[in-house]
């Protein structure tokens, strides 16, 4: 190595030393920092606690329920004429429903179905919303004039979905496809598509002016790689927050569809929304049958909402110190 080369190397090393930061001072990733804040936020802890409890019930509960969910053998104790439906007892912790079935078993199995429907519906909205929004955002941010045209077309489609109030859009979809549990999940998912699409698009467009995008472009990284590898990971935070909040609204919307007679056509399959709607017929003399599924829906939705709001706060760059 020449003398000059050696000196250059020395200089570089000194520079590196100067710019190097202690491990303790090094900036933490957005996610790790957000997680740290979440762990110290009581609201997040309450929300997460509720969700862990209900998810555990949904996963393990159905193996331990005392009676079958379609077992109507206690129907003899239900008297329609005198409006008698036996309440909680040692055998039936939450009593018997108006069709002579064990309410507790149905609530536990219902947890599984309800959460599953909510999660799948949200997943449908998330996947299609992110495909639409991601493509749109990438095209707008990186695609030049033709990209903007593509974005314009895709956004008009999203506008179309936004042009109908959510519940009515869901009603139309169920009416087209015919009522079933699958249809309900699709309908509630489609309602969430435009929100996810707009959110990811906006977030990606905001990111596409960032310095790291300019840097990657000048290094010759392909546009597809920049979009997927650089912009997308930096844009998903609001989408994840929204997904958590959507899980709450999905469960409530499923219940609303049941109430409109567009839920699962088979009410013997326990799902909280269906159960709640079914129990409203006997609300006046057995309000508990409606109260149990309603409380379960409210508490679960609250869990998702609390966690989502706490995440939003934790990821908000304005609040970062």
């Amino acid at each position, binding site marked *: 190595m020449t003398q000059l080369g050696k000196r250059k190397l020395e200089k570089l090393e000194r520079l590196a030393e100067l710019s190097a930061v202690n491990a303790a001072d090094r900036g933490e990733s957005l996610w790790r920092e957000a997680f740290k804040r979440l762990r110290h936020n009581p609201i997040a802890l309450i929300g997460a606690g509720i969700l862990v409890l209900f998810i555990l019930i949904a996963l393990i509960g159905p193996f331990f329920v005392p009676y079958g969910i379609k077992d109507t053998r206690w129907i003899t104790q239900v008297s329609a004429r005198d409006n008698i439906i036996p309440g909680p007892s040692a055998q039936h912790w939450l009593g018997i429903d108006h069709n002579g079935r064990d309410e507790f078993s149905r609530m536990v199995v219902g947890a599984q179905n309800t959460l599953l429907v909510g999660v799948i519906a949200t997943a449908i909205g998330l996947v299609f919303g992110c495909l639409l929004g991601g493509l749109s955002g990438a095209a707008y941010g990186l695609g030049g004039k033709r990209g903007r045209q593509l974005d314009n077309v895709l956004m*008009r489609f999203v506008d*179309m979905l936004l042009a*109908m109030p959510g519940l009515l859009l869901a009603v139309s979809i169920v009416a087209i496809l015919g009522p079933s549990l699958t249809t309900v999940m699709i309908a509630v998912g489609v309602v969430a598509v435009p929100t996810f699409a707009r959110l990811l698009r906006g977030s990606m467009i905001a990111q596409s002016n960032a310095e790291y995008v300019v840097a990657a472009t000048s290094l010759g990284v392909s546009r597809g790689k920049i979009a997927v590898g650089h912009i997308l990971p930096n844009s998903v935070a609001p989408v994840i927050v929204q997904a958590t909040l959507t899980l709450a609204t999905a469960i*409530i919307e499923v219940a609303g569809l049941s*109430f409109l007679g567009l839920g699962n056509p088979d009410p013997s399959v326990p799902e909280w929304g269906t159960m*709640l709607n079914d129990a409203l017929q006997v609300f006046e003399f057995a309000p508990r049958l409606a109260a149990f599924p309603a409380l379960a829906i409210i508490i679960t939705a609250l869990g998702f909402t*609390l966690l989502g709001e706490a995440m939003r706060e934790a990821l908000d760059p304005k609040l970062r110190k």
Partner: protein
Amino acid sequence: MFRFIVRRLLQLIPTLLGLSLLLFVWLHRLPGGPETALLGERGTPETRAMVRHQLGLDQPLWVQYGRFMKRLLTGDFGNSIDTKQPVMQEFFDRFPGTVELTIAALIFAIGIGIPLGYLAARRRASWLDNLSVGGSLVAVCVPIFFLGYLVKQLFAVNLGWFPPAGRQDVTINSTHVTNFYVLDGILTGEWDAAWDAIMHLVLPGLTLASVPLAIIVRITRASVLEVLGEDYVRTARAKGLTERRIRGRHILRNAMLPVVTVLGLLTGGLLSGAVLTETVFAFTGIGLFIRQSISNLDYPVLMGFIMIIALIYVLVNLLVDISYSLIDPRVRVR
């Protein structure tokens, strides 16, 4: 400004075209096609063929779509299978009820929400603040129809303070001019009829207001908190202005902008919620009729109503956008 409005109106065209296509597909996806929807299951092959010919269903699809569009543009949505009346007429017979309900809900939501949000922000971390923030988180998680049942059971059935169902007591013999019952009562001087209609609006209005109220409380609170820290509020205090003047002129005026934006977004939720609320309280508006046409498989009504609601919804959102740029001169419309 004018260019902005024209641009937004032009943007509506593809949206509404897409919607009409969706509804057209819907009509054709019906089991047995539209002729079954009209004739029911009892049609013979001959009558079916006749109806198909009359409806032009033997024509190519694009011709059918053209005709369908032509009818839509002239406001002809066909007749209700259930009542045999034109869908348009059914809609406008019931629309005043839903408008009344929505206005009642907005009065509750704004009238309670803005003062509560303001007080919560001024007394940050007090019990009032915690209660309103906590309450607003819970309120959005309660299925609105369940809330309606609870409210109805408590205040109408058990306490008997308010009527449990309907828009007006059937025993009241009132004249209807506009079909806005409260307005009708005032116009004709039938004060008892107007009062009765108002009493019928309280419970459904409160139920429908729950979610918007929660959202308005939170937005107002957040927005007032932000404005409170602004320099101009400190300046106003330093100038020795009265607290009332600071509140009205400096804090609330500036804090209201995000609230106005949210109001537009709430319309969709209100229309969705109206379907559920009207069903619970047997309140004869468009929501209840939609619920009934779902059970009666009255597709022309469902389709027509959804199309008209979508149109109203996009127009309301356009109005909100325009009013927003009028209220805040800083918002420069592109």
